């Protein structure tokens, strides 16, 4: 095949979908096209049909890629062309032509009709896309588009009836909701195989994969094709005008599920669940649909329930899961589309002629509408499965398939089909004789007029086809069923030839029995209605209950959560986080394989006592005191881990935290109950597993030793490149200077934040709080020592424990001691600059230390090092990291001192206020 042919076929196939879109767009855009809406819609469908026939004549075969939409996710717009897909598309387009033409006559020249036909055209395009798509994700997209279009279509009569919206919503929720698991199924298929149907056919998926995919896709099939328990939306959708029901609920939308089943049969037909689920569901639907159809007074609802029943029959047939069954299902699908579309349109004709659709008011229409009578006779005959019509042929094929093999499931299937079919004969008789024969039961019916050509042409064509289909069985088999079913199943099917007369066979006997019993049933019922079954099981009510239940559930959930305290939210978050840690727990076993450290266990014991006291002992100050004790035990653990800088930092931090607590204590403890915190099981249930997860994490980290290159680099580079022996401080001041810079900024922000939270309140009193005489004298002694120590920590930090952070904390402790002893006023008088200014100045130094090397053309935060030996006697090491460290010291010491002074002054004013 030449490239030009492939390109042409790609465009032709795309055109099939585009033609109805163009027709729809035209109708939406041109308001003056009211009168010709039906013609425009029919032309769009007709052009599609022409293109399909063209491709059929070309014997187009294979995948035609139009557009690689998202190739990474296997989303590709491509058409799968073969005689099977094209034949189904032809059916949809053909019925489309007839329905559009009928709709034009039904609606007359009106804006509503124009919009309905435009939407119907868009629906047709989505349906054609669904049939022809090769890519599963495109198939899904078209599938959902049909559901969306049907929502608007069912809602067409919203101006006349108030039940349309509920019906439309029901159909949308059920079919779109059912399709969601299908998307999962498609994603699954794409991940284990391919997103292309054609490629999937070439694979032989394992049964497990087939089962998973089938179970995920099944809800979509059941909802779209109105199988029990999702069948109820279909009778509800009868709120739509007749042309729409005739199209959506005969040949197209409700068939989508069956078409998908046919398409997926070669992919996941191997799973035993295929038969085990589809046959019972289809059987029950078949019987129940028939029963409910028998009880209807409205002939349109009768048709709807009949559709439910026949969809069940087709599901059951396809569910048998053999090539022959698929072949029978395909034939029935076509036969059903022809007679059901024709009957729906006839119902529209009856409604138009007699102005009623109720059997209790109809009757005797044969007199005034003879043409409709004959067409309806043929179509009803086909539906009831009488020879020589298409319906007979297809039902025979189904029964024949069933009698060929005889395991239990087939017996069940035969019973279901026979029961359903008896009902079908009976309700078809009710419809036909009730409408056309006897005497009119109302004035409208007696004054009925023959509907115009617009109402008659479609039933005429469909009736003729139903007849030809039956009579021409031999040619239908050869030219239609064989190529279509072979290409859809993907292999030749050995099957007996299709014929009206096979001699006296089991299926024929069954058929005769069905017709006899059906007739008998019709005579016995004689127009009496049947009870609709227990109300609690009625679909719409169950659906309403489901909706209100889910609303109530959502309401209750949001109420429960909205009223909860933040600790409940936080607990929930932690619980979800916990799920992630479950695999870690196995590591806890390492506890017994490690050597126990004696010094460590002593520290641990103290820690345990402190924590137990924290929770179990009364007293507010006790809690904070014990928190400090815990801090000291942690510092000891740092010592055991050979981290001297951390020990220093931790100790200073404990001191400072205690100081700040002491400053704010008067405010803090007022609302805290002094009674013990105690144990609560709900909180423990969250806390203990998390604690265990933390411990497990330690073992897990220990089991996987870190890459030695990183620590070795720092250990080797610190003395050589950065000329420092305290590697931790070299990292902080030099290698990772940017981190330190940012972290210092965080501390400054916290300190400034304290200032912002607590506005300064100056008291009018001359005297202010300060330390007693003894304290002042002691401070006089200690303060110089503290400052010396802080300075030493700063200067020696490059080679020994200490450094910027530690030194800054020490300066802060010294400063706090200073203003606590002498009072903030005299403290301020003695220092040259306000502490918060010192903090900001420190930050500026840090910024300068980062920027200056950049100005000099070096990377940010580059440092220089060297040794100075004045007079040749001393050797003083110098390094520009010192400036950086000084910046850190000023920022931290200044920030913390400023925050402490703010708290101190606030405390004092409160005291002055005489509380």
């Amino acid at each position, binding site marked *: 095949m030449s490239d030009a042919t492939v390109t042409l076929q790609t465009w032709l196939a795309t055109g099939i979908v585009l033609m109805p879109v163009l027709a729809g767009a035209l109708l939406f855009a041109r308001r003056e096209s009211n009168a010709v809406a039906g013609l425009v819609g029919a032309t769009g469908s007709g052009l599609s049909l022409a293109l399909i026939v063209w491709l059929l004549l070309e014997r187009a075969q294979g995948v035609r890629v139009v557009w690689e939409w998202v190739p990474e996710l296997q989303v590709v717009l491509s058409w799968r062309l073969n005689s099977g897909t094209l034949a189904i598309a032809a059916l949809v387009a053909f019925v489309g032509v007839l329905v559009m033409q009928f709709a034009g006559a039904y609606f007359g020249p009106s804006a509503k009709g124009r919009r309905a036909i435009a939407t119907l055209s868009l629906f047709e395009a989505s349906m054609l896309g669904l049939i022809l798509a090769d890519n599963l994700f495109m198939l899904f997209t078209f599938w959902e588009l049909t559901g969306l279009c049907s929502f608007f279509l069912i809602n067409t009569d919203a101006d006349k009836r108030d039940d349309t919206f509920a019906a439309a919503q029901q159909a949308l929720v059920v079919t779109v909701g059912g399709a969601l698991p299908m998307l999962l199924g498609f994603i699954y298929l794409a991940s284990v195989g391919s997103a292309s149907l054609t490629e999937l056919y070439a694979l032989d998926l394992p049964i497990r994969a087939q089962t998973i995919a089938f179970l995920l896709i099944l809800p979509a099939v059941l909802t779209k094709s109105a199988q029990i328990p999702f069948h109820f939306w279909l009778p509800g959708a009868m709120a739509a005008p007749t042309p729409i029901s005739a199209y959506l609920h005969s040949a197209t939308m409700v068939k989508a599920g069956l078409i998908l089943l046919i398409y997926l049969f070669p992919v996941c037909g191997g799973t035993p669940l295929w038969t085990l689920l589809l046959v019972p569901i289809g059987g029950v639907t078949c019987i129940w649909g028939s029963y409910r159809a028998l009880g209807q007074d409205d002939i349109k609802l009768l048709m709807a329930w009949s559709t439910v029943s026949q969809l069940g029959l087709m599901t059951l047939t396809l569910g048998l899961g053999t090539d022959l069954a698929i072949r029978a299902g395909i034939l029935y699908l076509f036969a059903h589309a022809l007679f059901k579309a024709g009957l729906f349109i006839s119902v529209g004709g009856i409604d138009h002629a007699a102005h009623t659709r109720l059997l209790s008011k109809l009757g005797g229409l044969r007199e005034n509408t003879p043409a409709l009578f004959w067409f309806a006779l043929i179509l009803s005959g086909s539906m009831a499965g009488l020879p020589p019509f298409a319906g007979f042929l297809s039902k025979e094929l189904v029964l024949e398939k069933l009698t060929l093999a005889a395991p239990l499931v087939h017996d069940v299937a035969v019973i279901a089909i026979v029961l359903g079919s008896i009902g079908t004969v009976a309700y078809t008789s009710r419809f036909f004789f009730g409408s056309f024969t006897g005497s009119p039961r109302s004035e409208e019916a007696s004054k009925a007029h023959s509907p115009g050509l617009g109402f008659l042409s479609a039933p005429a064509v469909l009736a003729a086809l139903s007849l030809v289909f039956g009579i021409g069985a031999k040619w239908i088999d050869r030219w239609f069923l064989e190529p279509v079913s072979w290409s859809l199943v993907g292999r030749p099917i050995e099957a007996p030839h299709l014929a009206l007369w096979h001699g006296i066979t089991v299926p024929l006997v069954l058929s005769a029995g069905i017709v006899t019993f059906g007739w008998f049933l019709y005579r016995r019922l004689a127009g009496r209605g049947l009870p609709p079954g227990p109300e609690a099981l009625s679909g719409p009510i169950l659906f309403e209950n489901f909706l209100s239940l889910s609303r109530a559930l959502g309401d209750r959930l949001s109420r429960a959560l909205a009223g909860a305290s933040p600790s409940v939210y936080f607990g929930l978050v932690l619980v979800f986080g916990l799920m992630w840690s479950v695999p870690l727990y196995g590591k806890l076993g390492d506890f017994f394989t490690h050597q126990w450290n004696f010094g460590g266990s002593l520290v641990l014991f103290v820690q345990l006592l402190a924590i137990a006291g*924290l929770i179990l002992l009364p007293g507010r100050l006790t809690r904070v005191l014990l928190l400090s004790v815990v801090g000291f035990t942690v510092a000891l653990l740092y010592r055991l881990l050979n*981290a001297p800088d951390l020990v220093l930092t931790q100790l200073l931090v404990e001191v400072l935290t205690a100081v700040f607590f002491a400053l704010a204590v008067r405010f803090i403890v007022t609302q805290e109950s002094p009674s013990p915190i105690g144990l609560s099981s709900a909180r423990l249930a969250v806390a203990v597993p998390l604690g265990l997860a933390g411990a497990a994490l330690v073992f897990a980290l220990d089991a996987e030793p870190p890459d030695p290159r990183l620590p070795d680099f720092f250990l080797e580079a610190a003395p050589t490149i950065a000329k420092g022996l305290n590697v931790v401080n070299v990292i902080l001041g030099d290698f990772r200077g940017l981190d330190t810079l940012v972290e210092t900024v965080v501390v400054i922000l916290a300190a400034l934040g304290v200032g912002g939270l607590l506005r300064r309140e100056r008291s009018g009193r001359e005297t202010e709080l300060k330390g007693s005489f003894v304290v002042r004298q002691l401070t006089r002694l200690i303060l110089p020592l503290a400052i010396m120590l802080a300075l030493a920590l700063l200067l020696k930090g490059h080679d020994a424990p200490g450094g910027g952070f530690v030194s800054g904390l020490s300066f802060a402790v010294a400063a706090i001691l200073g203003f606590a002893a002498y009072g903030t006023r005299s403290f301020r008088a003695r220092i040259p600059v306000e502490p918060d200014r010192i903090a900001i100045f420190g930050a500026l130094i840090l910024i300068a230390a980062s920027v200056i090397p950049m100005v000099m053309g070096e990377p940010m935060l580059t440092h220089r090092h060297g040794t100075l030996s004045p007079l040749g006697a001393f050797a003083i090491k110098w390094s520009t990291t010192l400036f950086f460290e000084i910046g850190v010291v000023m920022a931290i010491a200044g920030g913390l001192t400023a925050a402490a002074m703010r708290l101190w002054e606030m405390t004092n004013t409160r005291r002055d206020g005489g509380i």
Partner: protein
Amino acid sequence: MVPVLAASVFLLLTAGVYLVLQKTLLRVVIGLALVSHAVHLILLASGRQGVVAPVLLPGGGIEGVADPLPQAFVLTAIVIAMAMTIYLFAAMAALAKSGERMEVEPVPDSDEAHAPEAVQAELEGRVTRP
């Protein structure tokens, strides 16, 4: 040392989370402090254990020296955790001064208060919550 570390992390984390889930602010702050201790110890556990501190002797080798990188991380983390604690202390003081209760209070549970219109009105500043 690893089992001691793990046991301590268990103690600190359990008690910390337990306190964070309490209702009064002081307990939450203490809980956060305990949780940060636990996290620091976990960070240290991620590094190579050593028998010698990473403060080198001139000319000495690097055999058996503890991993300096986690120590540097933890050092800054300690200072930042302290800054946070101090900030929370100040926030509690400010709250107490303005006369507000210092509980981690539940959102008031009334239909009007969290009906969408009420929330919208609050966002637009039309109604102020009592």
